């Protein structure tokens, strides 16, 4: 291949791979299990609402029956995800004050780590440069 690769000197490809790996690690840090679980919960709720709305507009019988079955599936799944986040202690339906405190804290932490990831992306440290 190219001379650069055989000499083991500046290799743009390996640098790019390194950057991708690092980006994935940062992504995993930001997208932890709790964030993914709430993303799933939000999507499940949106689906239930979309079905409810579509069912009120459905005129064709087979459309109604398909939508109704999918609506019930989606609602059951939304309950499953909600039970999961409650069981994990991430969502406290009977403790609004505690919930708001917890969410404020986690929102602040998330925005902080988001900022540090962004500043790292804008100004890579000298150690990351190829020699």
């Amino acid at each position, binding site marked *: 291949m190219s001379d650069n690769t055989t000499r083991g000197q500046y290799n743009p490809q390996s640098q790019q791979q390194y950057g991708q790996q690092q980006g994935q690690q940062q992504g995993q840090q930001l997208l932890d299990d709790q964030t993914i679980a709430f*993303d799933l919960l939000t999507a499940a709720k949106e689906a239930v609402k979309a079905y409810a709305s579509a069912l009120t507009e459905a005129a064709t019988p087979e459309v109604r029956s398909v939508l109704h079955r999918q609506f019930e599936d989606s609602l059951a799944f939304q309950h499953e995800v909600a039970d999961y986040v409650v069981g994990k202690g991430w969502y406290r339906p009977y403790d609004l004050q505690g919930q708001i405190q917890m969410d404020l804290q986690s929102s602040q932490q998330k925005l902080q780590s988001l900022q540090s990831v962004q500043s790292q992306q804008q100004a890579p440290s000298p150690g990351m440069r190829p020699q």
Partner: protein
Amino acid sequence: MSKGVGFLNLGYHEALDLHEILGLKTNCAARSATMAQQVMDQTLRSLLQKNVRAASQHAQQLQGLLQGTTRGGR
């Protein structure tokens, strides 16, 4: 007598809603499949995988309705 959206034989509004939910479910399946690869908790992973299966199946049924090939959906 033809009704609704041309060859689809659907009402305009229901065709629009089906189309919207089709996109929602397709994206949801793709997102859950990606997320299932990186979560740590086993229960969350199986919830995501369950969602991939269900959302894909829902999307296929909606495709059928929009293509006019599904009768009764069963």
